[in-house]
Structure formats: C-alpha cells, structure tokens
C-alpha cells in the first residue's frame, strides 16, 4: 500500500514545572498518522491525550517543557522549529476543534465576522472572497440558513451549532489534518451523532485526516480505523480498531472495555478498574498502570516496559508479553 505518511512523532515528552514538582504529562510517546486516516486517542483524565496534541501545536503555557526526537509533518521537520513557524504552518495545514466552542469564540463578534476575520488575517483574502468562503464553509458543515446564522452571536447558537461553526473554522484552509479534542463530550447524544456524522462526511468530502481525542470508546469504534490507548502519559497499546476492540492485550485496555456494559441487556455486575487515576507529579519509575493493574508483577515496579510488536500495526508496552511472564488471557473476547 502506498499510503502517505502525514504526521510522525517520535519520543515526545512534555513536562510541566510547577511548585510542587514536575508533572510528567507526556512520557515519550511515538505515533503517526497517514493521509486520509482517522486515528483515535483514547484515555481518561490525566492520560496525556490532550496535552500531547497541544504540545504538537505548541499551544501550551511557558512552564511546559516539550522535547521530541523527531516531529515530521507533511515531510517538514518541526522538531526544532520555532513556535511561530509551527503556529504558521499549523494554522494553515492543521485545524483544531475543542470540547467547548464557547471558549474559542469571541462572544462580542458575530460568527460570520469572526470567520471572515480569520480568513482575511491568516489567508490574506479580500473581503469579498472571505465572505464567499464563509458561506461555503457554513454550507459544508450543514448549518441551515447560513446567511441569517452568520449574523448571530455565539451565545445565540445551540451547543451543536457552535461546534459546527468551530469545525467550519478548523477546515477553513483545507487542512490536511484536523485534531478534534473531545468534540462531542459537552453535547447531547442526538447532537453528538450529528457532529460525528458531519466529521465523517468531511473526511470524504475534503480528504482530511483526523485525530480524535476522546474518553468514549464508542465514539472511536464508529469513527476511527486505528486506536491509540493512553494511560498516565504513555501509549500503553496501539493498533487497528479491530485489534484493540477484539484482541486487546494490555490489562488497561481490558479494563476500559470491561467497565462499560458489554452486551445489550446485560445486568451482570460491571468489572471496574480498581483504584484511582494516576498522580502525574513525580510518578514512580515503573509501568504507570501498575498500581491499578489486576496482574501487577514485581518487575512492573522497576522500569517502564519496552514495546512489544504483535503485528505491523499492533504494539503495546506490558511485561505480560515477556517470555518469563505468566499467561493471562483476555476473557472478554468478541462481543
């Protein structure tokens, strides 16, 4: 297959220096996105899923230290690029959609005006061109009656409509990659279904790749061909959707899949993951999931497990993959 590699991140680390210590938000993650592909990053709060993408975009405050062995985007090396260079490039080629559109929209400007302004400043468009493009974008994100909607202020729109506007702004410059950070978490289910359908349709229409950050495995199952599972700042498992959902190998992935009701109409007790989410301040040296892992071994406390490759696409970090380790089977199987 001759898929083109769009984004490649090698060993990205992000640390926040605060008064109580170092918050190791991202601890050396490597991932890639191919052209036209939808990759899901799943994890809970504190897993580093959002911070990793914000690091890529250099959208973090000053006290964050970001380092990486290599970051390639569309063939360009961004590893040592300045913040301005990254922002200029990303503003053009990467679109971002956040959970709460209200915080990214200026409440004092009509949405039409905001969208035009962005186009005119970043893309140096003329007033007429920008106006035309905005109408086109609003149509693209299925906003009914775009001409009158344009004249409304953000607070006059529903949550779903605002998210459509954000998506419209994110795709304004035909980016090759859209990063959507929990785009539907604040929305109701029926509206979530609308937005997910819209994102899916846009991938076909304008051929963009998508990185979808979410805590909801269901959202990923319906959208993404590949899944990255993060825990405590690390990628613990990664693979095609089918590999992650049907033949997962990492105990954390098992836990995630088991803690939601499995079969329709199943009233048997759920199997939760014990314990509490990790404290990222000065974490212990071993596997981040060890304190909550039902199969924790002595070796898990010593150092981070290495990467085991199960197939071209399926990789994980777990000592259970070692030769000397006891065999523990995934009893979930295919639903």
């Amino acid at each position: 297959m001759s898929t083109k590699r769009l984004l490649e991140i090698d060993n990205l680390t992000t640390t926040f220096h605060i008064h109580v210590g170092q918050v190791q938000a991202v601890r050396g993650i490597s991932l890639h996105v191919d052209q036209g592909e939808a990759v899901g990053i799943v994890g809970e709060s504190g897993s580093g899923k959002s911070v990793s993408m914000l690091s890529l975009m250099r959208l973090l405050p000053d006290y964050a230290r970001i380092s990486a062995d290599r970051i390639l985007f569309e063939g360009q090396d961004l590893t040592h690029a300045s913040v301005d260079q990254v922002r200029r490039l990303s503003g053009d080629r990467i679109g971002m959609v956040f959970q709460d559109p209200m915080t990214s929209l200026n409440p004092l400007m009509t949405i039409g005006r905001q969208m035009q302004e962005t186009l005119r400043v970043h893309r140096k468009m003329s007033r007429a061109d920008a106006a035309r493009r905005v109408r086109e974008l609003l149509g693209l994100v299925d906003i009914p009656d775009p001409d009158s909607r344009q004249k409304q202020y953000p607070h006059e729109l529903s949550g779903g409509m605002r998210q459509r506007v954000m998506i419209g702004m994110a795709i304004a410059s035909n980016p090759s990659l859209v990063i959507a950070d929990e785009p539907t978490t604040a929305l109701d289910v029926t509206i979530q279904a609308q937005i997910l359908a819209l994102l899916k349709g846009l991938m076909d229409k304008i051929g963009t790749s998508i990185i979808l950050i979410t805590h909801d495995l269901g959202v990923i199952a319906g959208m993404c061909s590949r899944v990255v599972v993060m825990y405590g700042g690390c990628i613990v498992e990664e693979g095609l959707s089918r590999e992650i959902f049907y033949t997962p190998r990492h105990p954390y992935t098992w836990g995630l899949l088991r803690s939601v009701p499995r079969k329709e109409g199943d009233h048997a007790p759920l199997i939760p993951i014990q314990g509490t989410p990790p404290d990222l301040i000065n974490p212990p040296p071993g596997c981040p999931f060890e304190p909550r892992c039902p199969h924790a071994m002595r070796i898990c406390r010593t150092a981070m497990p290495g990467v085991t490759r199960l197939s071209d696409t399926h990789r994980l970090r777990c000592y259970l993959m070692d030769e000397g380790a006891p065999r523990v089977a995934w009893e979930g199987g295919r639903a």
Partner: protein
Amino acid sequence: MTAQPLIRADRVSMQFTVGSSITRARRRVLTAVDQVSLDIHRGETFGLVGESGCGKTTLGRLLVRLYRPTSGTILYDGQDITSLTPQQMMPLRRKMQMIFQDPYASLDPRMTVSTIIAEPLRRTDMDRARVDARVRELLTLVGLDENHARRYPHEFSGGQRQRIGIARALAAGPEFIVCDEPISALDVSIQAQVVNMLEELQQRLGFTYLFVSHDLSMVRHISHRVGVMYLGHMVEMAPVDELFTHMAHPYTQALMSAVPIADPDASAASQRIILQGDVPNPMAPPSGCPFRTRCPVVMPVCADQKPALLDIGGGHWVACHRVGT
C-alpha cells in the same frame, strides 16, 4: 402490581419564572416538568433518561420535595407530601436522599469528611460517640479508609468524592435515593466502581432508586424500569428489557440509535437515525406533541393535539399519535 408504590407522582408540573422580579416585564414561564405521572415501587430502580433540559433533574428534585410542584400531587408511601412545609417534611427528610452529579460541587469544601457525612445526623438524638462510630461505619461501607474522616474534600479524587457523597446520603438510613447523573462527571473506569457500589448497596439495604442519567447503556444496566423524557414530558415508560427491545416512541428510537457502540463491527452495521436540528426552546415549546419539530415520522395531527401517555400493554406506556390508535 398490587403493592402500594413508594413514590407516586400524579400529573406533576413544575414551572419556573425567568426574568426580572421588580418590573415584571420580560417575565417568562419555563415549564420544566409538564404533567408527569409515575410510580416507583419499593426496591426498584427507575431509570430516567433524556437530554439536557428535558426536565429529568427537576423531576428528581420534585420527588424528594426540594422543589414544590406548581401542580399535581406527590405521594410518598401513601402520604401526600405535595405541599408539606419544610418543618413538616423534616421527619421524612431522612427517608429520601440524593446523590449529586458533580462530586466537586456537592461537598462543602470547608468541612471535613466526617462533618459532611454526619450532617444528616445533626437532627437526630445520636450522641457524639455514636455519630463518630456511624461515620466510620459508613466510610468502610463505601470502600474508604476510616482515617479519611478528618480530611477535606479537595484531597480526594472524583471517584472518592462521589463515595463520600454516597456515604452522606446513606447516613440517616434512607429508603429512597435520587441518583442525579451520579457518574457522568467521572472517568470511565471509575463509573463502573460507583455503579457496582450502588447496585450492591441496593441488594444489601433494599434501597429504591431513581437513577437519572443521559447514559443509556448504564441506565439499561442498572434499571428495572425506564422512563424517557423530552422537553418536560414523559414520552415513554416501560420495564427495561421491554423498552430496549420494543421501543415505540420515535424519540426513544432516535436516542437509542445515537448511542455510540464500543464495537467497530456492530457500530458499522447499526442503522443510525440522525435527528435534524436542536431541542426547541422550553420557553416557547411547539404546539401539540413536543417532539414534532424533529420527529422523522411527524403527521399533521401532531401539531394540533398533544398525545396522551397510553398503556400499550405490559406496563409499557407511550405518548405518540402513531402508537396504539
């Protein structure tokens, strides 16, 4: 069922007035709950689902009389509690409790865990030593350490705080507990811990729950009967398996089909009904059926007449002109 229900709501409505109170200009009425009737039986979990603004939280608060309904009656164990004053409610307070959505907002940040848990016991004649013993017992019951009693809420994670909230709700020995979105603010792996605990407590102590949530899969898992609300109306109500296998209201069908399935193949095979548009403004609800503006199978009659909630057999109630006529 012949036994008397623990909770009976009969055509309960709740209206809020929005706007300035001095000038009386621009005052508008928001009907959060519109003529809702339901029974909840002892030992049962009644799941209440719907989207934001559908009135499910308001209904939950009405049933424990945090609000006084604008019209209709609420019976608790046969006793009319619709218009009891706070003083008259006092003896009943300990029997009905609530678990809240936001574990960060539902615990007073200035109080220690033991003060928080013991607050419902203040009106009882328990002495200090017995209160302390009860607090320790409750902490153990919800899986927390007894030594946590002197700590403050901000020292705990979301899941642990929710356990503290549960311990507090249990303190006075309630019969009926309204769980208002108790898991929606928690991480996925923690949600299951809390749901399991609620189920276990129900089995051991025989609680009756109203489980309010927008998470249909959890509601399906935990409930015996489920009600679906839309724009202040109860549109469908049935035993859980009946509802999820024979859903009759077009809104219920759309809601179910919109739930993401954590299984790529099943997700690809599922038929999604994607509703158009947004929920109407509750201050200017549509005429007739509240769902008609988004309904994929709307008929002319839907704009003229509000469909009544009718029993279509087996305790399955639906409010739709397309069903049962």
